[in-house]
């Protein structure tokens, strides 16, 4: 497996921010999602977040909800997600799983960590687990050398940011808008100060999720963060071309190219 920190190290050596792309496993199909993620890798994503579709995704906006629900309706299983991880990780790009907690607990925390590591996965992003309620996951991740990516928010206190930075491995995910996932027209003025607060708490890389959907926004965020996370805009490419995967992949490729160019022209 490859820790996500290697992607940040490479990007830093090139004087730029890393581009992290998200898609849910199983949309439009398991194989289709693998193909889509490989396109994102080829076109310039430095790391991939694979969403594990869940029935009650409280942090997700309508775009990601729609794709995840379609994946569930299509019968995607946790075991399928492991297969997607294995296929994407084989490209040598750090590959994380982003998941709500219950599917992990149901699979068995230790078993999940072991299977994720065996598939070559880098670690987990856990939107509904904070380090102070995540002892079981922290122990399993440490045992298997997996990245533990926890989130911070503009509402986080300095104490909690310090705790989160200390407990995270790979990077810290700064969810820089108070709200659910989704593409936004304007970037938030909450993001810069949040990144600064995480940086002053530790030396773990900070990636920002803020609804970026084009190269100009990516460039703006890359100006102050170690990584730019893009989710809904990628999902939108596939949703907008439902039933026509090749067209969806073309859209993904050109969006990735635009974003990858954006993270390179910031500084």
């Amino acid at each position, binding site marked *: 497996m490859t820790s996500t920190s290697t992607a940040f190290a490479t990007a830093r050596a090139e004087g730029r921010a890393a581009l992290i792309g998200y898609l849910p496993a199983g949309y439009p199909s398991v194989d289709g999602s693998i193909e889509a993620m490989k396109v994102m890798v080829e076109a310039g994503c430095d790391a991939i977040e694979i969403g594990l579709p*869940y*029935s*009650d*995704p*409280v*942090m997700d*906006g*309508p775009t990601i*909800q729609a794709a995840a*629900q379609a994946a*569930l309706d299509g019968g995607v*299983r*946790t075991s399928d997600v492991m297969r997607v991880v294995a296929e994407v990780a084989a490209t040598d790009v750090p590959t994380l799983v982003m998941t709500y*907690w*219950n*599917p*992990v*607990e*149901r*699979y068995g925390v230790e078993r999940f960590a072991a299977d994720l590591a065996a598939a070559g996965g880098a670690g987990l992003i856990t*939107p*509904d*687990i*904070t380090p*102070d*309620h995540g002892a079981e996951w922290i122990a399993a991740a440490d045992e298997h050398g997996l990245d533990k990516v*926890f*989130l*911070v*928010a*503009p*509402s*986080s*206190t300095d104490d*909690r940011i310090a705790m*989160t930075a200390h407990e995270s491995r790979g990077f810290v995910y700064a*969810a820089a808008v*108070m*709200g*659910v996932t989704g593409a936004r027209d304007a970037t938030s003025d909450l993001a810069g100060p949040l990144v600064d607060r995480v940086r002053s708490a530790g030396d773990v890389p900070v990636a920002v999720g803020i609804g970026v959907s084009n190269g100009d926004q990516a460039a703006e965020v890359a100006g102050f963060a170690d990584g730019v996370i893009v989710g809904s805009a990628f999902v939108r490419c596939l949703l907008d071309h439902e039933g026509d995967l090749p067209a969806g992949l073309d859209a993904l490729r050109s969006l990735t190219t635009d974003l990858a160019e954006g993270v390179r022209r910031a500084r």
Partner: protein
Amino acid sequence: MSVQPSTTGRGTSRYDADERGYFGQTWGGRFMPEALVAALDELTEAWQEAMADAAFVADFERVLRDYAGTPSRLYHAERLSELVGARVLLKREDLNHTGAHKIRNVLGQALLTKRMGKTRVIAETGAGQHGVASATAAAWFDLDCTVYMGAVDTRRQALNVARMQLLGAKVVPVESGSATLKDAINEALRDWVASVDHTAYLFGTAAGPHPFPSMVRDFCRGIGDEAREQCLEQYGVLPDAVAACVGGGSNAIGLFTAFLEDEGVEIHGFEPGGDGVETGRHAATIHAGEAGVLHGARTYVLQDDDGQTVESHSISAGLDYPGVGPQHSWLAAAGRATYTPVTDAQAMDAMALLSRTEGIIPAIESAHAIAGALDVATRLGQEKGPDATVIINLSGRGDKDMGTAIEWFGLGDADLGPDADLEQVEADAATELDTEAQQ
């Protein structure tokens, strides 16, 4: 009668949560996005301070008395008692303003919202009872109110949508997921993540992330505190058993809390058994679910092998939820309370029985408690004689359920006269209970 502030969240009883919100070190907790942690911490602190503040407690007590009409009566149901051979006492929460126990919870949370200086409240609702209660409290306290309701439910419960609108609330139909209660909770949480600086989430039951299970319990525990005192006053004894229906479980935990340390008192929760647990179409979460995490708490959850939430089913919308309050999971695991499923059919029989013996039309939710508790009362009557005493929480009135009753019993056509099947229910119940008594 006074509101008795609990020592909740400070771990003074083995049945309470610890300061991090875990019951029995396992159940509950706070599995929530970091974005909401500051708000949940703020709420926890405000609630604990408020419950320790005599002025807040007095204010809550006054509002409950003058506006909601508490304490509710503890009523001796004599004909029902005769039928089962034991003393059956009904805690008449159906007579509260808005017709259910839920007004206690929303008045407590709305009072706290005012104290915290927030100007807007949001709520989720299934059948609409918590939504109506929230809209009521928001009107009375002059707060903006938005209620999230599954689109399936807004169509089934158009009357309650209209009530909320008349009270000045905005009702938002939720189309995502299964478009029912659990999805309404998801959508309310999504709203809250974006509005948390000025908005309070009036959670409708004793579930969700810490502090909601303990806080909602505190606001509802007057049910049991009153009933315990009334029973001692009126009959000079503690009951032999207490019983309530359990969906999320706010009325049940509100009744049970006062009796947890009374070891001689049996505690019975009755879960929605739907078409029967064996059919898979039910919402008997504790009886048939498995431990998991839903809506921020570790608790029993109806889920599949991958941890995806399974859709629940109950004829009673208020009990139709695939999770349950985490304190109930702990009371079940600790062996302090017993949770038993009651089917749709058994609940509807009990609805008819109570209507015809006592002239009280119960909510279908509460009818689950009646159905289950009558068996308990019959057994206790045999063991201890006719003075054996059972308190049943009559958590709400049945007006809202008349549409379901019309369909189930084939009512509403005056030309047909009283439905023969319904006449038979009363006779059958008497025979059945009599047979049980002889066994």
